[in-house]
């Protein structure tokens, strides 16, 4: 009878490795951690049953090294692989290798990853499935001249993006031909360097927008359900800093339309497991468009867990094994409000990275407070990986209560050593924009001009 795999190799590091291990242990699943030479002291290693060194610090030699990870799985007899987010999580080739090795892949079918991984293909697929998309290119834009010609048709401002991109890398908005030419060349260089694929697409840019995404779950029986939305408009460099659910900018009628679109998106690719359909909501018109789909567990998944009471990692393990989810998919309820703050090793003014040894670490606790931490006192933040130290997640009966709890928790969080963005989060929570809920993706640049 299907249930959950009896063991899982976690092909990731830091807070998400710890978070996956927590649920695995609760379900009696044996855990295998992998680590690079830079991560020998990381807390997640002690939280797993076994830990395997897979290579030197640079990600290409360790956390992106599919052969080393598969060898670790073979050596430890792991029955499944959970990729977390980032690294190999959206690499269809890796997913196929896992499956071909006879292991269970804790993720969607490789074909779904592939179809959504190319943003141009995803756009076209969504348009055919009846999901709204922004006016833009249905095929790669070959050069800057073609980009300028296309912009003349769709109208400025436009957004330049790498088709294979993610994390905001290579993305820029352009208001005129000169900016577009410069943005196109930058995007192309970065797309080649970071993603090994120079294809570029252009879309109409929405200047005043909220970033709202829908959590979907493709069940083992083929149904796709939606577990509400998350508002991720608080961003710097097109990367999220804070998320909340429900979105203060989404009312019941709009929510119904967005969740229905999220379900259609998942159905269009035969989705299984946890995935996220990201949309941009035009605050001027109240219309939304598809942005991209993340075919994995999202960093900010805890806010959904806090309001629904559903453990998303548990559902991933169940679905991957062909089992039913642990809750009634027809009776999902949401209660209260949840906010997540990403605590990063970055200076709180310019958001520049600040690696270094952590000498003190006191995380807040209390009613409605959850901390998913990747580091602890005595560990060192190295320059090799992203700057996320921990996710501070709070829940309250109302948004006002969640805000109060978040303010208290930020004030109580003590980290010494690297600079952190805790002071920024204090400012954010006290700002008129964020407090009122009436904010958009410009909120960080308003607070840090």
């Amino acid at each position: 009878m299907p249930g959950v795999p009896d063991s899982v190799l976690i092909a990731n590091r830091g807070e998400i490795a710890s978070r996956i291990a927590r649920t695995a242990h609760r379900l009696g699943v044996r855990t295998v951690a992998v680590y690079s030479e830079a991560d020998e002291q990381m807390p997640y290693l002690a939280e797993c049953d076994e830990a395997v060194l897979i290579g030197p610090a640079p990600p290409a030699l360790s956390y992106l090294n599919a052969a080393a990870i598969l060898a670790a799985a073979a050596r430890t007899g792991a029955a499944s692989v959970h990729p977390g987010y980032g690294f190999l999580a959206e690499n269809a080739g890796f997913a196929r290798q896992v499956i071909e090795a006879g292991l269970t892949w804790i993720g969607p079918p490789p074909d779904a990853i592939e179809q959504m991984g190319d943003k141009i293909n995803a756009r076209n697929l969504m348009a055919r499935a009846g999901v709204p998309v922004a006016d833009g290119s249905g095929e790669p834009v070959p050069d800057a001249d073609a980009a300028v010609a296309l912009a003349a048709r769709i109208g400025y401002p436009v957004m330049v993006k790498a088709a294979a991109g993610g994390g905001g890398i290579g993305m820029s908005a352009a208001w005129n031909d000169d900016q577009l030419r410069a943005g196109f060349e930058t995007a192309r260089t970065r797309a080649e360097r970071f993603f090994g694929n120079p294809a570029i697409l252009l879309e109409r840019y929405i200047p005043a927008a909220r970033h709202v995404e829908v959590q979907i779950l493709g069940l083992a029986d083929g149904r796709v359900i939606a577990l509400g939305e998350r508002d991720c408009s608080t961003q710097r460099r097109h990367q999220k800093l804070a998320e909340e659910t429900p979105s203060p900018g989404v009312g019941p009628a709009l929510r119904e339309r967005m969740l229905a679109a999220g379900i259609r998106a998942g159905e269009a690719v035969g989705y299984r497991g946890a995935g996220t359909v990201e949309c941009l909501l035009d605050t001027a018109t109240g219309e939304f468009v598809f942005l991209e789909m993340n075919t994995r567990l999202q960093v900010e998944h805890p806010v959904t867990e806090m309001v629904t009471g559903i453990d998303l990692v548990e559902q991933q393990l169940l679905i991957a094994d062909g089992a039913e989810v642990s809750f009634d998919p027809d009776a999902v309820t949401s209660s209260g409000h949840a906010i997540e703050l990403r605590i990063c090793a970055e200076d709180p003014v310019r958001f520049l990275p600040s690696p270094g040894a952590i000498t003190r670490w006191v995380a807040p606790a209390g009613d409605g407070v959850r901390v998913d931490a990747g580091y602890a006192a005595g560990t060192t933040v190295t320059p090799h990986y992203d700057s996320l130290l921990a996710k501070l997640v709070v829940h309250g009966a109302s948004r006002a209560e969640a805000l109060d709890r978040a303010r208290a928790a930020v004030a109580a969080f003590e980290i010494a050593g690297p600079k952190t963005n805790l002071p920024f989060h204090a400012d954010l929570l006290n700002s008129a924009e964020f407090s009122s809920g009436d904010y958009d993706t410009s909120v960080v640049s308003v607070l840090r001009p």
Partner: protein
Amino acid sequence: MAEIRAEMVANVWKVVATEGDSVADGDTLVILESMKMEIPVLAEGSGTLARLAVSEGDVIQEGDLIAVIE
């Protein structure tokens, strides 16, 4: 003479300028990479780039010399 030093531990991703170049205030000399972020190192003042102390692929520590402008 102005010395430009690293603000953090980082990898040298790209060396944009060449020793002997005339540079203006704000020109990009080198692009560092740390924690998945690109950090441009800019000329602080105008002059001649007398020394470029880093090469692509180097790992530099906070306080390490990157360039000297005269």
